[in-house]
């Protein structure tokens, strides 16, 4: 077991290195001068050159990458003399556009995205799985047809449509929930306030995913219900409720949780549209802006973070599967 974990860890680190290096290479190939973008229109060449040296853009690619890597462990100092500054470890770089160390940027944006993702996850799992089970149980009848309408809507409506519709009608027209133009409220400080702040973005994301999970759960439940071991359970005299919860759902959970873990990982850094519509200063919005502005440090950092989250979720999901399915543990 220990060997297995170590091997996974080693492979994960290797993946992160490859991913981050790939970003560096992409930026190196692009025909833009990152130093020139560090100041606005009124730049003169001297400032640009000074920035270039400070940020290390004058050095060869591999050296730049090495400086980046060592910065993670030891912190990184930029420039010399009066205009020098330091980004303490773990330093993921410095963003000129935002005028801050990238780690600080992540500290402020990550909680927002995580809150968004976690809330949406809870919502879509509860709604999706419940509807899926109901649709399977009442297959061919009204509840099933109703849920398939929901599935159709949820999968066809893009998030920018749902988000905007919710924003316009619920926030602006009916004024049920305040606009989120200002005032991020941390969930830990003020749950109720945060709830109001995040409600519409949660619903926007949840609708799209719940539709997918309804469809998937329905199919998985129907397939499991036709398995021989469910027939055995019935032959033993178990009531339908017990059969559903103990036998069917346990078997269905494994693939659903696998998917959910990966979808969750994708939201960290991927909920760009939702964050933009509701003006949430989260990781997705930060990444989008940094790509437009060719802010290399931020893009590298968010890419690594996103990749890291996917890797961790993959590992957790695999372990969860082993807990659920004893046949997997043999391997």
């Amino acid at each position, binding site marked *: 077991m220990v060997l297995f974990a170590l091997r996974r860890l080693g492979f994960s680190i290797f993946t992160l290195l490859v991913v981050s290096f790939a970003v560096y290479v992409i930026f190196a190939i692009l025909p833009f001068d990152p130093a020139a973008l560090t100041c606005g229109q009124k730049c003169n060449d001297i400032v640009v050159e000074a920035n270039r040296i400070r940020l290390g853009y004058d050095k060869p690619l591999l050296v730049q990458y090495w400086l980046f890597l060592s910065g993670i462990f030891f912190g990184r100092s930029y420039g010399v003399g009066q205009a020098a500054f330091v980004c303490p470890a773990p330093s993921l770089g410095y963003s000129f556009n935002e005028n801050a160390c990238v780690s600080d940027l992540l500290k402020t944006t990550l909680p927002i995205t995580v809150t968004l993702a976690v809330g949406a996850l809870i919502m879509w799992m509860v709604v999706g799985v419940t509807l899926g089970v109901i649709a399977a149980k009442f297959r061919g009848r009204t509840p099933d047809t109703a849920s398939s309408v929901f599935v159709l809507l949820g999968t066809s409506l893009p998030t920018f449509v749902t988000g905007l519709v919710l924003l316009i009608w619920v926030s602006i027209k009916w004024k049920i929930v305040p606009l989120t133009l200002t005032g991020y409220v941390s969930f830990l400080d003020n749950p109720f306030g945060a709830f109001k702040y995040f409600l519409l973005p949660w619903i926007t994301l949840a609708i799209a995913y719940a539709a997918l999970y309804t469809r998937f759960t329905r199919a998985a439940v129907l397939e499991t219900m036709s*398995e*021989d*071991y469910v*027939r*055995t*359970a*019935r*032959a*033993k*005299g*178990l*009531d339908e409720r017990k059969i559903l919860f103990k*036998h069917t759902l*346990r*078997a269905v959970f494994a693939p659903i949780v696998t998917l959910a873990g990966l979808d969750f990982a994708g939201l960290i850094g991927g909920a760009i549209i939702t964050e933009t519509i509701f003006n949430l200063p989260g990781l997705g919005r930060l990444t989008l802006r940094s790509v437009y502005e060719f802010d290399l440090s931020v893009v590298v950092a968010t890419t690594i973070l996103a990749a890291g989250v996917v890797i961790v979720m993959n590992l957790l999901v695999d372990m969860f599967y082993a807990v*659920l*399915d*004893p*046949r997997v543990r*043999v391997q």
Partner: protein
Amino acid sequence: MKEILSVENLKVSFPTDDGLVRAVDDVSFTLNEGETVAIVGESGSGKTVTSLSIMDLHNRRAAQVSGSIKIRDGANTVEVVSASPEETRSLRGRVVSMIFQDPMSSLHPYYKISNQLCESYLVHHPRQKKAALDKAISMLDLVGIPQPDKRVHDYPHQFSGGMRQRVMIAMALMNDPKVLIADEPTTALDVTVQAQILTLLGDLQKQFNMGIVLITHDLGVVAQVSDRVNVMYAGKIVESGPVDDIFYKPLAPYTLGLLNSIPRAGDKKMGRLSAIAGQPPSMINLPKGCSFAPRCEFKEKVSGGRCLSEMPDLTGISSEHRSRCHVDEKERQKLFPTLAVK
């Protein structure tokens, strides 16, 4: 002998897009304590549908069931066809149990067998966890699982095929049912393992005085363990009687054809097998008249083409041995060769 199960005029039909499938069409038989009744047939004969009806395991919305299935429960008799789902559920696993063909897929892969065995007990004896586990271990011992107190905590995939079938048998007997339905219990097993399992079932039957309904297509197995036999074809019983009568003095053309067509591992290599011509009929468009007529070599013996227009009744000179055929029974006794294999 006490009668514990009685099936009368059972009909099970399934409406499909292509028409009504009469999977079971007027089937009647009885089962007594301590005896084994076999239901023999090929795919599509309706034998599995019959067995599922006894336990009320059909989807009530999909299947149309009529007739009578009476099961003895202590001093009472329960009529399964008209009983509520709650009533039949109480019978399952307690008075009537079932074991299936494929033990790997019939056991839940995620739960230890202790969990699955105790579950059988706890459904009908709630909250007696200690008693359940004790019973589970003693049942595993009874079916011949070595080190039962250790192995009870294993998962299904940790057992071999034969062992898993033993576990299934143990699970089915947790509540000492009076009726055991065995649906092709040894078809998926190797022949040496099959011998072990059939011997085990025989021993357990004697010990518990159980009645067994054995569903199979294997005539060898029928000969080994059955007391009485019902032969099914296209949803109907075409012959029923004591096992010796069926094998040595068959009266239905289908039974005769079947017995003639199986190769026998005897002393000498026999000539060409005499196969039954044609194929089993489609259950959706059953031919008018006797369902076996298209394949029967004796229809010329019946005047007026009755075989093709009229379904014969299940009758017999002896009430013990009945068959469905328009040819006069005495004539059939002369016509059909007596099969006595050395």
